[in-house]
């Protein structure tokens, strides 16, 4: 049940790391040493579920959407007639 010691955000709030106030000893040590892999260590430790984050740590960022052919006659506005918020 216990969650990870850190939540990393890359978009929300402009990107930030939220640290728990009860990090593991390994995490505390890494942060005290200002170790470059502190985020990784703290993200991995203390969780019964583990922490994924592999894509981010691989350094990938979003950008283009891949190459497809541009077609001139595109119609828009065919979705979105629902009057109300989409979520529930």
């Amino acid at each position, binding site marked *: 049940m216990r969650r990870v010691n850190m*939540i990393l955000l890359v*978009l929300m709030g402009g990107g930030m790391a939220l640290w728990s106030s009860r990090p593991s000893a390994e995490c505390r040590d890494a942060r005290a040493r200002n170790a470059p892999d502190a985020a990784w260590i703290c993200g991995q430790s203390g969780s019964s579920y583990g922490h994924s984050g592999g894509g981010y740590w691989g350094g990938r960022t979003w*950008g283009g959407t891949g190459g497809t052919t541009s077609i001139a006659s595109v119609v828009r506005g065919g979705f979105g007639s629902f009057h109300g918020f989409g*979520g529930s």
Partner: protein
Amino acid sequence: MRRHRLTPRPDWRERARSLGFAYAEIAGEPYWDETACWEFTAAEVDLLDDATAELERLARQAADHAIRHDRRATLGIPEAVWPLLVQSWERQEPSLYGRMDLRWDGSGQPKLLEYNADTPTSLYESSVVQWEWLTCAYPDGDQFNSLHEALIAAWPGMRLPPTVHFTCVRDSAEDRGNVDYLRDTAMQAGLNAPFLHIDEIGWDGQRFVDLANREIRAAFKLYPWEALLHDAFGVHIARAATRWIEPTWRLLLSGKGILALLWELFPGHPNLLPAFREPGRTGGLEIAKPLFGREGANITAPGWRTEGPYGAEGFVYQAWSPLPCVDDRYAVIGSWLIAGKPHGMGIREDATPITRDTSRFVPHFFRSAA
């Protein structure tokens, strides 16, 4: 399960702002509410976790039954779109997330009120905002919440192309906040995650395309399936190769008709309430819910009635089991599933027994069994 009254942190608005939580207040009224919180025991959280997993098992069985036995009439799904649901189910297109709304007062078994299986919101506050609150308010406490890491871990299992477009309606900070948070988790899982508004999606005669006229091979849409299929572009969905998240088969579960089918298939199950498509069959007081109603609109319950645009599609009549009321606030538990497994909860409160879009999100914590 106990409600505590609290003094809010003096800087809670600044904290919300720094988190990008743009809908902490909606139309000048608080939505995020830390004047109170709910405390649970570890055993209570385990019980909610187990009930959610059990209900998911039942829901998947009911979906399979609906497909195999053509139960579209019970679910209120038009014949014209049924083949899309069948195809999506037979392909076993993965689900990313869902939220079950449960009625529970700490005794007996939690009861399923409805399953938001298509477009659930309150995700960011459940995952990040209430955890940030926990680290301040109860730093030694714990929380039923592994949503963030579960979402990041779930994306690779969705079997998606490298780019997934994200979309929702304009002019809803809440919807946009939920979508941007999901983009955040997708990006951390290594996906490209551009955004466009739902009305900006284009059709080039063969494919759905983005604003650069590039094919949308996969799209996360915070926009209900019943609306997507009803829109002018709905007729193109079957022709296009776009993978949609949530998949089409989730429409089997997101309407209220599933409540009647669940009760038919599993009568007397401890996590279900009696529910039928016809009134007067539950044997007691009933709440009438439109099949595809949203945000507590067009509900009729003993002593309560809400207005709204829904109901022409028909109703489900569910045994009336009012939410627990403490400090004049009615609380509903939203139990989250990520990739089909329970991973956390969020609690919303209202001054009435009907949870609506004006209900407030109240954080929770539990103390570990030391």
